[in-house]
């Protein structure tokens, strides 16, 4: 997600009444918002966010929490990643666009949601090749 998309998601959350989600464009405000995600998820207002906005919030948090992890299994067990998987098919275009913008280890979520794995065995572990394989699959199946 771009910084702007993240900020828009947090700004909309703020508009809906989560007072702690302060200011558009302020990195500190965005970080505070992500830190308070668990509290915010209990707010009824969360339901008013679009799927894409929810995705951006979970993705932002996952990137921060997974930064120092080397196990993709550990990354996938993080709540923010699980929440994206729980979004199901509607998360696929968001995941692919995020993969296109900045490759990251979204592959397990894509595989679990879609039930397929277009990555060849010799490409496993090569993040750019894995991203390319998923993006080709996404275009072939009209997800992006």
């Amino acid at each position, binding site marked *: 997600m771009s910084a702007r998309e993240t900020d828009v998601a947090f700004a909309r959350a703020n508009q809906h009444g989560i007072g702690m989600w302060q200011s558009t464009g302020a990195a500190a405000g965005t970080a505070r918002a992500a830190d308070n995600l668990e509290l915010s998820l209990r707010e009824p207002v969360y339901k008013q966010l679009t799927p894409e906005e929810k995705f951006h919030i979970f993705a932002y948090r996952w990137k921060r929490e997974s*930064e120092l992890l080397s196990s993709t299994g550990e990354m996938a067990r993080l709540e923010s990643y699980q929440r994206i998987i729980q979004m199901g098919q509607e998360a696929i275009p968001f995941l692919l666009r995020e993969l296109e913008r900045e490759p990251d280890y979204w*592959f397990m979520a894509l595989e679990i949601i879609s039930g397929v794995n277009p990555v060849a065995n010799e490409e*496993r572990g090569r993040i750019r090749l894995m991203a390319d394989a998923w993006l080709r699959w996404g275009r072939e199946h009209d997800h992006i």
Partner: protein
Amino acid sequence: MHLPSHFPNLTPENHSEDSSPTKDYNCHAWAVGFTDRWFDHNNYWPDPVTRGEALRNYQRAYESIGFRVCGGWNVEEGFEKIAIYENNRRVTHTARLLNDGRWTSKMGKSEDITHTRDALDGPLYGRIVLIMRRKLLTP
């Protein structure tokens, strides 16, 4: 990178950051000399070793590329050494011993750092549970 909160032993004096962040490789790859792949049970993994996060899986994976379990973490001429960390019965990290007795680690998707042996012990990576060594081809 938010190192201190995850690593209570880490101080500005016992580590230095050596590279820019990259998602191209992780600690397990870096420890054994790869900088073009993410080495874990879901990604690059040596065949035919059983994939898994348990210590025995990683031990066998490293054995398949020439490492053997050894006793000490001192520098030994003619050998490279790696230290495997475990937390909650899952392998979390691997570091490589440098010639000067310090260790080098790739910190997840973040930077490579040079550090002292116990600097990364803590709630995120756990602690070192196994040392392995491999004979250098050109000592």
